């Protein structure tokens, strides 16, 4: 699948944003974070900013962005519609939560309730995003049990690392959050490795024989219906060389998992402001790494239509 930047950035940014929002939504009311103006402002600003930037970016993928509002109508059947509804719906509790925290300086009562609702909304939205991909049968790499948990894990992971960076920035670091960040990053790494392993060993039932109805033997593409690239080839015919892919996998692992873990471990050992700087660096590295991971998520996904083209 063509790794369009708008979509790569959209899923990465909203994943991190919703992860952060979900954590803020529960950790604030639980008293883990004090209702401080700047913490709230930066934390919620970052979360909602990432979400908004992601959603805005996703409209860049649309042919008719001015009609984007129509996407809320088909929530009964469409995961994309549900995602749209959930994302917008989540803005309501998260907005209230943000107002309560930042302007009213409180994280109890209805603000706490809004936070919990925002948490639910964030998790739900990420689930919807995951399901958009997981529900697509023509793309075996996505239509897998690994996709939905992957989206949730990466969201939680990047949200946690971000939150850690924010709190460290305000010298509010605890030991639990970096520890969770490291653990979630390890979990993400493991999940990604397992996903890749699963995908690399995929035995896909759908092949050129079933695609053409020509049973037995081999079916080789002789001539395409057109000699230049068309929409299908541009959108779904993206190919990445194995060598290139494995290099990018290494880069993605280093940036998204390896480096953040090292930086976070170092942050444990170092005093503020070094710990804060390293935590921020860890979050930035991870965000970059996740962009590469998401790029690969698309680039390595093969659509059944390419069977018709012998690719």
């Amino acid at each position, binding site marked *: 699948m063509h790794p369009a930047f708008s979509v790569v950035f959209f899923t990465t940014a909203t994943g991190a944003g919703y992860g952060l929002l979900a954590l803020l939504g529960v950790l604030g009311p639980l008293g883990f974070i004090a209702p401080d103006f700047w913490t709230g402002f930066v934390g919620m600003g970052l979360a909602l900013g990432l979400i908004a930037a992601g959603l805005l970016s996703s409209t860049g993928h649309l042919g008719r962005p001015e*009609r984007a509002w129509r996407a809320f109508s*088909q929530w009964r*059947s469409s995961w994309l519609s549900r995602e749209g509804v959930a994302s917008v719906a989540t803005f309501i509790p998260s907005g209230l939560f943000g107002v309560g925290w930042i302007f009213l300086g409180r994280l109890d009562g209805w603000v706490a309730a809004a936070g919990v609702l925002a948490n639910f909304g964030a998790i739900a939205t990420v689930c919807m995003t995951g399901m958009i991909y997981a529900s697509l*049968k023509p793309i075996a790499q996505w239509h897998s049990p690994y996709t939905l948990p992957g989206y949730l894990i990466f969201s939680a992971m990047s949200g946690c690392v971000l939150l850690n960076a924010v709190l460290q920035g305000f010298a509010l670091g605890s030991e639990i959050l970096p520890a969770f960040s490291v653990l979630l990053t390890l979990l993400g790494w493991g999940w990604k490795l397992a996903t890749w392993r699963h995908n690399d060993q995929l035995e896909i039932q759908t092949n050129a024989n079933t*695609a*053409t109805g*020509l049973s037995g033997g081999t079916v080789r593409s002789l001539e395409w219906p057109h000699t230049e*690239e068309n*929409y299908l080839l541009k959108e779904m015919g993206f190919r990445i060389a194995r060598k290139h892919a494995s290099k990018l996998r290494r880069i993605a692992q280093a940036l998204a998992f390896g480096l953040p873990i090292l930086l976070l471990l170092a942050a444990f050992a170092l005093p503020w402001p070094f710990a804060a700087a390293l935590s921020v660096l860890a979050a930035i590295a991870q965000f970059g790494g996740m962009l590469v991971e998401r790029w690969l998520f698309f680039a390595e996904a093969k659509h*059944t239509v390419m069977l018709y083209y012998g690719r």
Partner: protein
Amino acid sequence: MTCLPSPGGKKLGLVIDLDTCVGCQACVTACKEWNTGGHMAPLTDIDPYGGHVDGVWFNRVHSYEHITEMGGRTVNFPRSCLHCETPACVTVCPTGASYKRASDGIVLIDEDKCIGCKLCSWACPYGAREFDTDVGVMKKCTLCVDRIYNDNLAEGDRVPACVAACPTSARHFGDLGDPQSPVSQLVAERGGVDLMPELGYHPTNKYLPPRAHTQRAASVAAPALEPVRAEGGFLGWVDRMLSN
């Protein structure tokens, strides 16, 4: 509404005979020609005279080599929307632009609702949908919905353009929901198949496999020729035959 209608009786679709298709592209351009001025007009062509030409088409013909223990065979393969019974391209659509008609099963796009998110094309395993970058909406085969019921056309012309054009009679049209219809009977007789049945989209269109791989393979049970047994060999035989 992108929820699928409850299954109705009528399932209009095409039957494509891979035994007979010579890959002449007649159905391809007949489709382009009708539809570029039809319900989904236009079928935009980008860079039509340049090096990156890329147009919207509803029907494309591939060719394959099918190599089995029985030998090789070249197969021409028209590919278009199969008007599936459970089309994910419809259910994934967030806007309701993509829909399946309850009355005849045709899968259509309401262009005015389409936001051009392309998800339907991702959800279609068959590559039946093509994006018009100029107007920013998805387009697809309409099964010539503006022909098959068209009062302004002579009755005999009320078939999809591809079926009317096909010079080898490799394309058939009808109600595949009616087991008694001529197309259903053709499918039953020739062992018509679904494409990618394992994905569970339940395509309406069927493909008739090449007969070299079916029981209908044409063979002539000819005994080997034996030299004539007549005095004087062949010429002697000629003389004998003429004097009879």
